[in-house]
């Protein structure tokens, strides 16, 4: 963000001084649109805060997310009359809630990023191949997409985690292997459009090899779709991990996962509702910010297709 603002200011003054003589380059125009897009700014800001908390968790709290203190169980947060030592209170085992929340951000972000990366690779390869070759390749990929869509994600993920045990790796792999459908659908359509353009034909005529055409001509031109879907699927994976952990078949205790925190707080729902409210609100804001970031990127890179 700091980088873009720095390059932005000369463009702004320039366009103010001489609006007609200095047309903005596409990149400058995009940066201007980005800075005016409130959803994008909000999403980037909130996500930046969550990433900061995740990275600097050890600096932000003196407590470990695992240390139990049975003499300080279920202390309420400061705004409900608690002590400043545990400003978000403690859970049923006396673990500092803020420490668990901060370290939990690492789990959520890591699972979201890794799962979305796996599915991005699978989905983009399938989608680009289908869109580029068409014909039988396309039929085969479309068939695979249909099969994937027919499998109930939560159910299959639960079954696999139950069979292989709930480690971070298993959760990431199963989500990554299940969430590639939207990548494939969107990149297939996008590649079909790009494939018809002249520069692709030109590259082919010039004798560019197939990998080169796909890598240098197709991929960069479907990249904006890829990034948008990446954010959406990252949010999707984060929510699914939380749901799996909530059902007891995701990341296993005592790992600080937000879904697990909600699940543990469920027992005390009646008396200490903040135990589920705090991780739930955190989850909500993280997913909201990722989605708004994705929507913002889509609006900024393709302003004509907004509705």
């Amino acid at each position: 963000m700091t980088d873009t603002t720095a390059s932005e200011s000369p463009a702004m003054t320039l366009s103010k001084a001489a609006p007609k003589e200095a047309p903005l380059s596409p990149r400058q125009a995009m940066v201007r649109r980005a800075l005016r897009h409130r959803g994008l700014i909000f999403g980037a800001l909130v996500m930046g805060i969550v990433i900061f908390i995740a990275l600097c968790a050890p600096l932000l709290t003196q407590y470990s997310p695992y240390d139990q203190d049975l003499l300080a169980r279920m202390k309420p947060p400061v705004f409900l009359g608690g002590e400043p030592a545990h400003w978000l209170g403690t859970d049923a085992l006396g673990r500092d809630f803020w420490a668990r929340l901060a370290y939990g951000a690492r789990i959520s972000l890591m699972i979201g990023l890794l799962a979305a990366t796996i599915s991005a690779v699978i989905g983009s390869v399938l989608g680009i191949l289908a869109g580029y070759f068409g014909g039988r390749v396309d039929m085969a990929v479309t068939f695979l997409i249909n099969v994937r869509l027919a499998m109930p994600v939560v159910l299959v993920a639960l079954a696999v985690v139950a069979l292989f045990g709930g480690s971070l790796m298993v959760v990431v792999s199963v989500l990554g292997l299940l969430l590639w459908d939207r990548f494939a659908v969107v990149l297939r359509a996008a590649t079909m459009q790009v494939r018809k353009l002249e520069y692709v034909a030109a590259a082919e005529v010039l004798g560019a090899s197939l990998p080169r055409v796909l890598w240098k001509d197709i991929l960069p031109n479907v990249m904006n779709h890829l990034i948008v879907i990446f954010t959406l699927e990252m949010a999707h994976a984060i929510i699914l991990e939380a749901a799996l952990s909530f059902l007891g078949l995701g990341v296993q205790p005592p790992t600080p996962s937000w879904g697990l925190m909600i699940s543990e707080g469920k027992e005390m729902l009646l008396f200490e509702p903040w135990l589920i409210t705090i991780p739930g609100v955190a989850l909500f804001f993280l997913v909201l910010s990722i989605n708004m970031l994705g929507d913002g990127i889509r609006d900024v890179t393709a302003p004509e297709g907004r509705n």
Partner: protein
Amino acid sequence: MLLYILKRLGLAVLVALTVSALSFSLLFMAGDPAISIAGENAAAEDIAAITERYGFDRPVLVQYADWLVSAARGDLGRSWYFDLPTTEIIGDRLGVTMTLGLLAICFALLLAIPMGVAAAVKPNSLIDRAALFISVVGQAIPSFWFGLILIVVFSIKLGLVPASGSSSWKHFILPTVVLGYYATPAIMRLTRAGMLEVLSADYIRTARAKGLAPRKVLFKHALRNAIIPVISLAAVQMGFMLGGSIVVESIFALHGAGYLAWESISRNDLPVMQALILVFSMFYILFTFLADVLNAWMDPRLRVG
């Protein structure tokens, strides 16, 4: 039309077969199934007896073919936990899930279509922005958390509806809201986009020009055309919802098929799990097939594809 339906049907059957193979292979993914039935520390004779009884020593392909043939006859194996046919166990529970799915999709449609229409009639107005806001926020709320919050507010604080169980219609209110709101944003966006497109069409201008009442133009001419893709989306969403009902059912302890899935996992009851994955997939395939046919029937242009 008939050719189109046959093509779609063929595709649906192929997808169903592939899914069935995948869900069958689940049984073998985690190692020897005989050991998972008997337990880690079982005696060798017990394991041998179980292998013998279930025929695990035969080639996997033979077992799959066997399973497929009996599945086609409506026999999806026996539960390891209850020692009853899985179809019987699932059949008992499916009614609740289907009721929940239908209620949820109705709830979503009743909420999303009016909002989408209102948003499209006045783009960028307050209503449009509110609808967009609701859909963006709605997509970010984790359903299990939303369910718990509803329980806290409406069951515990206000005491209006029961928090868990499935014995009366009141038990379905909160689960319907939780499951239904999930499908609302997508349906609303599609309604809005469809209405925007239709409202700028020539025949709408004609209808307005000849002095038809605005309400009539909106509902009789515009919505009728915009609603076609929405209905097919609703069918697909219904398929997704049945698969997603597991989370909602386990929060509210609704004794449906989703809750059964969760129970089966904790009981290590693989055949029921397998059968449930298959049943939910089949529903999804059936709903998307019906949506395709419905679409083609209502919009002849699609029949070519």
